[in-house]
């Protein structure tokens, strides 16, 4: 029963609200069905599936709130769930940051967020895609480890102030690391989609295999400041922290106002409106974009619309809670799901052609904050790092550790390529000068 229609979901939610005796009550249904296959050493190692619908009920008495959940939907269970939320609410302390539930909202349509091609995926489809990938690696005498994960789901919300929301979402993600049998070469490729019909495991496997074969016999370069071309998967990761995600996560108004953010201003206030990046940097969110279709409402029911966060290097907006927005009389913008960095038309190959001397980075890894004051992060290159000379890839290089801030990085911008989807975002490859590598790594 994982994917309920709008009417089916709202009928359950109406029934839930009818059992409420609280001042305010909001109910959310969240359903998901999907599966995954994991492979290593060119064989399937594990596989699993998910099929679940969960109801979350939040009840409020005055400024006291309680939450309860259940995953069965007969009347008795629903009634008990509402009662439990109310019991917890009565015991809870008053919230000094209480905000009344939202009333009716207008949400955008995002028709591409759900596709039948992804919703219809079968175990056989997964086995065939991963099987073809493993077969290619067997033929090339390379060793692969990969992960394919797909899901289709829905979210429905309703409250007793008149708010009503419903949306379906599908997602497929695939990543693969291909290594040479002697462990001296490694390559990586990843992609994610709303629409599984765009997915081709073999194409991605070929990219990773080429990088693996091409990265054998890497030469050591001295650490230091280099011009780099960061591929989109080096800027945003599905499975780890990343430099651009770190920047977007730091656009929080409260942290900035409280003085604990790179966006805090000396003496108080924040730096919204200041030009902090190269003027070619523009980042916005748009949940209706067909390439990165996303939810058009946030967890607390606020509409997700097109919002420009950074425009021509100037910080234009910060996201915030409803409480902080009201207290400070600032725009009430929820944190976006995915985001889009504007770019040009050049491919990564075009960026390489225009580079006299530099380093191509496939992927960055184990990225962790070092100093939140400057948004300094450290991490390492991985799975395909190459030296570029006179517009061509000259040879593979040993991996580096970097210590760099996305703020400094986006001021040292040389060129922006054409955005591609990574982790639900549209991200262009970037050419950056003076990127700081601080040591070498022997890892392959």
């Amino acid at each position, binding site marked *: 029963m994982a994917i309920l229609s709008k009417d089916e979901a709202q009928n359950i939610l109406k029934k839930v609200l009818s059992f409420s005796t609280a001042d305010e009550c909001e109910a959310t249904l969240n359903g998901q069905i999907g599966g995954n296959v994991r492979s290593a050493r060119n064989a399937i190692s594990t596989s699993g599936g998910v099929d679940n619908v969960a109801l*979350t009920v939040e009840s409020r008495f005055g400024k006291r709130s309680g939450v309860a959940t*259940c*995953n069965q939907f007969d009347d008795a269970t629903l009634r008990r769930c509402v009662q*439990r939320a109310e019991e917890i609410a009565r015991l809870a302390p008053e919230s000094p940051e209480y905000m009344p539930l939202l009333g009716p909202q207008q949400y955008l349509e995002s028709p591409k967020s759900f596709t039948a091609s992804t919703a219809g995926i079968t175990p056989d489809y997964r086995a065939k895609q991963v099987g073809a990938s493993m077969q290619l690696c067997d033929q090339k005498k390379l060793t692969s480890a990969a992960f394919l994960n797909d899901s289709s789901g829905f979210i429905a919300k309703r409250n007793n102030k008149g708010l009503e929301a419903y949306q379906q979402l599908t997602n497929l993600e695939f990543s693969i690391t291909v290594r040479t049998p002697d462990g001296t070469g490694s390559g990586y490729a990843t992609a994610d989609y709303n629409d599984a019909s765009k997915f081709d495991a073999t194409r991605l496997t070929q990219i990773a295999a080429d990088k693996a074969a091409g990265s054998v016999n890497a030469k050591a370069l001295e650490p230091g400041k280099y011009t780099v071309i960061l591929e989109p998967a080096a800027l945003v990761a599905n499975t780890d922290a990343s430099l651009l995600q770190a920047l977007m996560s730091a656009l929080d108004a409260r942290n900035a106002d409280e003085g604990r953010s790179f966006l805090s201003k000396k003496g108080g206030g924040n730096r919204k409106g200041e030009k902090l990046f190269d003027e070619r940097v523009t980042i916005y969110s748009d949940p209706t974009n067909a390439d990165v279709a996303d939810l058009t409402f946030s*967890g607390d029911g606020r509409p997700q619309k097109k919002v420009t966060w950074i425009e021509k290097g100037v910080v234009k907006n910060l996201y915030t809670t409803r409480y902080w927005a009201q207290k400070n009389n600032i725009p009430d913008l929820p944190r976006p799901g995915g985001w889009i960095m504007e770019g040009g038309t050049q491919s990564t190959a075009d960026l390489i052609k225009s580079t006299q001397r530099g380093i191509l980075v496939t992927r960055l890894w184990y990225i962790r904050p070092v100093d939140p004051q400057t948004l300094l992060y*450290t991490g390492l290159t991985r799975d395909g790092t190459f030296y570029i000379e006179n517009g061509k890839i000259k040879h593979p290089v040993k991996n580096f550790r970097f*210590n760099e801030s996305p*703020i400094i990085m986006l001021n040292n911008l040389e060129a922006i390529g054409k955005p591609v989807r990574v982790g639900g975002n549209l991200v262009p490859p970037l050419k950056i000068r003076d990127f700081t590598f601080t040591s070498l790594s022997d890892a392959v």
Partner: protein
Amino acid sequence: MKRRDFVGLTGLATSALWLPSLPSFGGTEVDPAHLLQGGADVAVKKRLADAALNAAKAAGATYTDVRIGRYLNQGIFTREKQVQNIANTESYGAGIRVIANGTWGFASTNVVTEAGMAKAAQLAVEIAKANSKTQKEKVQLAPQRGYGEVSWKAPIQQNAFEVPIKDKVDLLLATNAKALENGASFVNSVLFQVNEQKYFASTDGSYIDQDIHRIYPTFSVTAIDRASGKFRSRQALSAPMGLGYEYLTPKAADKIAGPAGSDVIGYKNSYDILEDAARAAKQVKEKLTAKSVTPGKYDLVLDPHHLGLTIHESVGHPLELDRVLGYEANYAGTSFATLEWKAKNIPYGSKVVNIVADKLQPGSLGAVGYDDEGVKTKEWNLIEQGKLVNYEKIRDQAHIVGQTESDGCCYAQSWQDVQFQRMPNVSLKPSAQKMSVDDLVKGVDKGIYIAGNGSFSIDQQRYNSQFGGQVFYAIEKGKIAGMLEDVAYQTNTLEFWNSCAATCDQSDYRFAGFFNDGKGQPSQSSAVSHGSATTRFNAVNVINTARKIG
């Protein structure tokens, strides 16, 4: 559905985003009183498990294990003078793992009835048979005798769920008050409590009932200088532990001072959260004006809270045999410490480096009676006098290194996840000779004392790492000489452990711990402790992390 979609819809995650890693809190929200209600009777669980074992056998399985798990969690989240969230969750269900056609299959169900168990067992066999079509080598399990009907309980003194929520909230708010009184601008504090009630049965003839408890009190204190715009934070020096609420009743004997002049107190088997919060506030203010480190080579004196993370990243992970073999290549990575590398007998560390793995130490996060494939737990050596002697492995890996038994370090984060090889406790043995922290510092001419774990990063084969900390003190001519800031060290695993000069004795030994060590795809979290005493490493490369932005 992407994780952020889900996180956005739950109240739980919103309050703890300052934490480096949020513990896994699966399950459904329940009334706090529900956390004290007993789970199913052992006889009932045996009957349910037998239903699965029989159904799997009938469907063609040659081996089956069943885990019926009830996972209880409570998290209390506060900032300054207010409670942000209280979450109580329960997750109950069963995971069934089989071998059919020489291949693993796994299925899980939250329908914990005889029919539900049988259905999941049949599905697991079906999946095993389907996956066997691409299998190249049949699963080889190390032999394991059945233990019959046995049980194990964590030796806790007070179940944290029995303590009224109000008392716990009061303690956290008092912690925040201590920090604010002592000059903090902001403070967040959190208390996590976990109870795993696990029942394991297998076709080897084991029926194992276990009751496991974990607790993790922690905070983050921030000081801000509005005029300069500078801010600094200091996290708690607590460790997540395999203990009950008794961990929060401080005992004087468990407080271990850092070197003279450092104003650092470490904690052993109990934790004084109020004292630590007051000290953190004073230290974080001092950090605002501390001298910025000059980069270069320094002898490092690392306290156990800090060193635990370095052990975790540079010894615990590279010696996981599944990583060594390539099973984690697409996510967590592989390892430099391959079987071929081990055969070369290259020193992993200096002669003072003796590192032991275990699932036994009382109060540790890894301590259980039996692992998640029914193997009685034990202790074994990983590194002896600097030499790599063994790995961390489970039943289907033992034969690869010529071992006839599992090490007993198999774990699944819940009933709905398949169990696989996870890191046991990995600890540095203290010196057998008497050695205090002051003795250790006395011999350092130019060095840095680091307390608390901070920023951390290591490559996918575990060579190159960079670590920060919570507080840093200069050591000059054998004495602590004031606080430093902007410190991180970069090192290579083999250089680092070979530069290990000396470690303190048992009186300084204590745990660091991690509630949420991630591995696998889909990622699973596990909790693990690392014991050590304060230890000296010579001539390590220290960098300055300060930067200027416009």
